């Protein structure tokens, strides 16, 4: 499975984007988000970007006020996931131009479309920025 979920949460703990690759009910999502956000936000800069939670791990990275949290299985390469987060941010940055929290909020669906190109079935399937963005650009052109 690899990736179980990708969350973007600001430092007040408010969810900005949530994508789950295994089905969880609304209550389960709420609970999970509450728990892990609390856990990750409490950590300082020097500590690892990885946190164990129940039977999986969370790899997180902070950009300005926004935290990117990725839940992965235990056999996943943590550092690679950390870089995957960065690739995601770079990709969004290329699309939005100086991407900020508000861009993601105004264009929630586009942020999701990018994720759809990058991750399927919990696996990273595409890492070329141009391949990720071209369907979205094409779509914008036609609409």
């Amino acid at each position, binding site marked *: 499975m690899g990736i179980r979920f990708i969350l973007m949460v600001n430092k*007040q*703990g*408010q*969810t900005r984007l*949530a994508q789950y690759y295994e*089905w969880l009910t*609304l209550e389960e*999502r709420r609970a999970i988000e509450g728990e892990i956000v609390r856990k990750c936000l409490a950590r300082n*800069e*020097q*500590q*690892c*970007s*990885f*946190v*164990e939670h129940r*039977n999986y791990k969370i790899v997180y*990275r*902070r*950009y*300005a*006020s926004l935290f990117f949290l990725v839940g992965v299985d235990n056999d996943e*390469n*943590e*550092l*690679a996931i950390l*870089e995957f987060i960065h690739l995601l*941010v*770079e990709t*969004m*940055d290329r699309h939005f*131009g*100086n*991407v*900020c*929290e*508000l*861009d993601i*909020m*105004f*264009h*929630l*669906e586009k942020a*999701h479309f990018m994720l759809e190109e990058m991750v*399927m*079935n919990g*696996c*990273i*399937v*595409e*890492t*070329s920025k*141009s*391949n990720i963005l071209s*369907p979205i650009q*094409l*779509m*914008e052109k*036609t*609409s």
Partner: protein
Amino acid sequence: MGSQGGIGQSKEFLDLVKSIGEARSKAEEDRIVLGEIETLKRRLVEPGIPKRKMKEYIIRLVYIEMLGHDASFGYIHAVKMTHDDSLFLKRTGYLAVTLFLNEDHDLIILIVNTIQKDLKSDNFLIVCAALNAVCKLINEETIPAVLPQVVELLGHQKEAVRKKAIMALHRFHQKSPSSVSHLVSNFRKRLCDNDPGVMGATLCPLLDLVNRDVSSFKDLVVSFVSILKQVAEHRLPKTYDYHQLPAPFIQIRLLKILGLLGSGDKQASEQMYMVVGDIFRKCDSSSNIGNAVLYQCVCCVSSIHPNPKLLESAADVIARFLKSDSHNLKYLGIDALGRLIKLSPEIAEQHQLAVIDCLEDPDDTLKRKTFELLHKMTKSSNVEVIVDRMIDYMISINDNHYKTDIVSRCVELAEQFAPSNQWFIQTMNRVFEHAGDLVNIKVAHNLMHLIAEGFGEDDDTEYTHLRSSAVDSYLRIIGAPKLPSVFLQVICWVLGEYGTADGKYSASYITGKLCDVAEAYSNDETVKAYAVTALMKIYACEMAAGRTVDILPECQTLIEELSASHSTDLQQRAYELQAVIALDAQTVENILPSDASSKEIEIDKNLPFLNDHVERAIEKGAQPYIPESERSGFSSASYLNSQDLHEVPPSHGLRFEAYELPKQPSVPLTTPPVSIGSSNELIPVPEPTYNRGTQAAVSLPSSSNAGPAEVKLRLDGVQKRWGRPTYSSSSASTSAAASQDTINGVTPPDGATTVTPAISKGRETTYEPTRKTQQAVEISPEKQKLAASLFGGSSKQERKSSLGGGHKTAAKPTGGHAAEAPAKKMAAPVQQPPPPDLLDLGEMTVATTGPLIDPFKQLEGLLDSVELASSTKNHVDVSAAKGPDAMAFYGDSATTVEQGGHHFSSIDDVDNLVSGLSSATTDASSGGGIPTSQLTTQNSKGPNLKDALQKDALVRQMGVNPSSQNPNLFKDLLG
């Protein structure tokens, strides 16, 4: 519409997002969302909503769910949107549906048809959107509806479609391997796809497949190796590069697959050595991603057949990781060390101090990883230190999940490597005392077993000593408040068996203690049951020894109280106790022989002694017994009748056939219920050993007895017993014995003791301190001692100077930016400096030339962030040249920026502003739209001027400015 949007988004939507963005608390956010739910409920039922508007509503529904509220009232509109002709709307519809619905939702059936149609579309983007939905929405039952089309799309001319089709197939394989088992060859085929993207994606299903069944993919080793070689040699298009590394994510996945394929396969491994060695050499070790690939190499090397040269490279990488200041690398280093230690145990010794530093690090993640490593390197010589540390740590944490995990590790290590019985018992006591509720009940039984049987040594005095020390320690602990139930059970059992054995303690002292326990934990029936049975054993022991039993008044009260208990189990135990006391010494000796806890009891499952009785009953017209296997669904019903819930076969789901065999359940009723004989048939004995079944009976003594006990009540003969070999001799005494055996049954004769006497492993020799000459450096003696006890030999001092120094200093950023180091230093006193990684960006290449006359000086003074200041300088350069034009264009004056600056300074968050010009850019532009900043943007990145202008326009349209509550919203994520 432009990428920055704004156009097409209604004021309402912008206001919603704005208010959510500025919500300061969860309560405020909830209030906004609840209001939004009301609005949308009203709006969605209005007739003739324009499509664009509808799309916006759908996104608002997504917001509602994302923020934790139910939006099911609008699901149907998302479903409808998937029918739309416009690609953008359709895709938004699909997105919303995948976010809202799981694959078993009722509405899915409405979408399958749309998906089928879209899979046939001429527009490949529509096909892709449908394939995305297939991956999330198709369940086992609907696979056949789309499978043929998905397979056809595997040969589509567009690589994006092939990629998504292969992932859809992957999904089907995850959901139901059998549905696509005939299509596995497609994964092999797509591996050779011309497009690297398709090839890369195909590795995902292949990794799963290899994981499941290594042997059928051995032939692909050559292909994987050659692909990896080409990737590493930079043969893929540049767009796959990430931070100058060729397709690192593909490399990592290939290394994972190779690790699996080469595990325990010398021949396959040999084919990999070359390419893995190449990657070790080529990989850039200064970037995160390079280290990620290197780490995966180490994992691969430790998994495949060992190769000395590669092991050496791996050891070098690990050494570098462990010496790094980055906690992330240390973490990976510890993990990698744990993998490599099986192959080359001596490597641990080189890093002992680094390991100890990690163990003592305040970072919990690192600490836990280190415990994992220690767990792997435990042996009899260091088990005491390691388990001791683990228990200390376990006591210090609150997270039950991890507590359970570490407890089971402790127990496992203690059972495996215990140097002495004494130590084992003490360790177990600590574990039980602090985490008894998290320990598997089996562990308690193992401990009882151990105390009863010892480690199998012949020495009798040792044996007795062990028991008396256990009794001593328990009598010490027993008074402690709030002991876990499991631990109390062990204590009661041991006191009952051995409390008076060595004559040190009098029976009345022990029984007094047992009564105290039963009273203190009056809510815990299991503990009370253990206590009362222990009492009985002690009295029996006294009687057998010819002493008169002197029952303390409090014991008497307890027994009386229990014989009127609501729990039939407790009641029975109390009655049994009373019956035993009334017997003569000889009988008691027979039914409760001392120290017989570990004697095996043979059980004849056929219960031959019942044969006569059964025949008589059949003659009288009773139905013959039908074995469980020959009964159909009826069995569960009959179990329920007899209240024997434990034995209900768990496999019974819904039954679709009619309830035949109506006669069966009436069997007990048709037979005359008066005679004892027929009443026996009420007892559920499909498995006659049920009560004696080792685990079932042991783990739930009270409840496992409860079922039959109630049957017994119906017979209104307290003395009657069930399903025991001793059944026919229906005296009270035998039943007492039976009951005691239940308790003794705790020690199943299946040889569960994994505890073995300490055997020193051959491996230890490598830890002998003979190899090196060492000189002492300034390392705390405490650490040295710990190192010595953990790693066997005395510590290797030569490493210390470097390690000790390195670890003491504060963590520093790993990035190599020249400008970064001073900035970082300055930022240090700031409350929350941004993580070093943030700055580690290749894009921040704008030259910071010397400052000109700085009109933004106020800004510099106001924002006490040096980083921001430097970036301000940066766009001053530009503004000097182009400023006037741009300003004219906007008609704004620089004073706005000053205001913006003032606003900022009044906000706590200022400190957190990410450095870099782009953050300043957005901040400034949002403040009042100073075009200079946009020019800078253009300078630093691609064609962003337009974007930024639009963004700015949007921001102003909304009336959001940085003085509002949450300026973070505008902050550039990439500083």
